[in-house]
């Protein structure tokens, strides 16, 4: 076991270094910059054999990544916020052309007003783009998921781009002890990408052909199937990773859910705070639990439903607003997963952390107490709670 001090960004760069990536094309943006900055140093120092493409924008970064992926290369890129927004057009092309690409997204609020701090507005705005979305809780998870993401993305039954999300600053810039694998172990785990087709002048193919009313729909249906395959393949990848790393991952991680009456469900770094508060409240005899979602797209309906159906009240933490919708994106998905459950738990939405506003243990405690009250009365007092906003 080798533990080294790494920030979340550095942990991702370290994982990419070990993954024998053929091409990295990226453009710097806070709070992602350190990922590609560290990686460019590995390239300059000759520690990797990766082709590093300096591009003029994120739109070009993803375009170059798509082109590289289609030749059969292993590809990595990274972005954040406005950069992800600028990639928007290419996100759909990456998934539509079925390009295995791993992209780290250092989650950050979207302008306006301009802000550089962490929330999930960026990736939530891209949630229907056909990318697999994974959220890490800390630097260790960012490292572990980056490695697993390559294997998932390149699987023949998936062949979809995968985003590994890490909360801006909270994860990207905080240094932790990260347990890293030895290089040969990573090489053995990932192996070389085996593309389903390659660019070969002897065997010409067409990529990006025009598909009208008569074919387009069929290719979208294929993407649905690939997304559904993620559930099965992810379990296999996580099992293989456990064998080499000793750390267990899956689609979600429950805490205290075996006897919880009230629960919160959230993504990313918030889970650590929520778990700590739950631990304290459970010591006081309050039956609360936490569900941390690792996989957001495809949404693990069955697992979420199984984890939550026995509780009486659920608070869903959304670190982004879906303007004009009844709930935030995660809350809509959770309610959708629960709607076939008889006597499903009373559910309410907690909007929090926008523009990087800190969430304190006392904030989470307030939500737990509200959820416990809801569990007791069976009445949702407030459908959406704007936690921590000044009135």
């Amino acid at each position, binding site marked *: 076991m080798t533990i080294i001090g790494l920030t979340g960004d550095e942990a991702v760069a370290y994982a990419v270094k070990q993954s024998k990536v053929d091409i990295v094309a990226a453009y710097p943006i806070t709070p992602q910059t350190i990922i590609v900055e560290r990686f460019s140093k590995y390239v300059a120092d000759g520690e990797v054999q990766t082709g590093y493409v300096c591009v003029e924008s994120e739109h070009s970064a993803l375009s170059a990544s798509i082109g590289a992926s289609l030749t059969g290369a292993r590809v990595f890129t990274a972005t954040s916020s406005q950069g992800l927004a600028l990639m928007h057009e290419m996100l759909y092309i990456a998934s539509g052309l079925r390009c295995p690409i791993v992209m780290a997204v250092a989650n950050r609020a979207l302008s306006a007003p301009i802000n550089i701090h962490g929330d999930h507005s960026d990736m939530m705005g891209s949630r229907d783009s056909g990318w697999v979305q994974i959220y890490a809780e800390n630097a260790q998870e960012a490292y572990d998921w980056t490695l697993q993401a390559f294997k998932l993305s390149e699987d023949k039954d998936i062949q979809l781009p995968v985003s590994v999300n890490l909360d801006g600053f909270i994860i990207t810039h905080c240094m932790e002890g990260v347990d890293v694998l030895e290089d040969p172990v990573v090489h053995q785990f990932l192996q070389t990408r085996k593309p389903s087709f390659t660019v070969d002048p002897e065997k010409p*193919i067409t990529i990006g052909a025009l598909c009208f009313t*008569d*074919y387009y729909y069929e290719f979208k249906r294929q993407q649905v199937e690939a997304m559904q395959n993620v559930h099965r393949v992810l379990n296999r990848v996580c099992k293989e990773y456990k064998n080499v790393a000793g750390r267990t991952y899956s689609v979600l991680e429950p805490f205290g859910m075996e006897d919880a009456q009230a629960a919160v469900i959230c993504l990313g770094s918030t889970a650590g705070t929520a778990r700590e508060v739950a631990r304290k409240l459970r010591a006081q005899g309050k039956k609360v639990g936490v569900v941390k979602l690792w996989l957001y797209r495809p949404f693990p309906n069955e697992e979420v439903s199984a984890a939550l159906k026995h509780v009486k009240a659920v608070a869903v933490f959304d670190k982004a607003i879906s303007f004009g919708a009844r709930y935030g994106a995660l809350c809509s998905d959770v309610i959708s997963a629960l709607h076939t459950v008889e006597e499903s738990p009373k559910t309410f939405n907690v909007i929090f952390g926008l523009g990087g506003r800190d969430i304190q243990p006392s904030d989470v405690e307030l939500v737990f107490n509200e959820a416990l009250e809801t569990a007791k009365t069976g009445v949702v007092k407030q459908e959406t709670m704007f936690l921590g906003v000044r009135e």
Partner: protein
Amino acid sequence: MSSNEKPGWKSLPIGAVVTEGGTSLKYKTGDWRAFKPVVDKGKCVNCLLCWIYCPDSSIMRQEKWVEVNYDYCKGCGICAHECPTKAITMVEEQK
């Protein structure tokens, strides 16, 4: 062409990759056509302006007049527009 004759999503190559070259010949675009060009052989002087202008190479040269390849002609009407002897008329397709 009815949709039943085309392959379903399970048998198509993923990502809309076309796995061989020269396949545009297999994509018969004639069924896009709303109006078809009809050549009056008596008026055609075989000047080949239509052959030059046709964007889909759907005019076929014959010895004394031209014919239209209806498998690929999309019915754009450029041939009829350019024909100096008004030998080509656009006739609505009967569906």
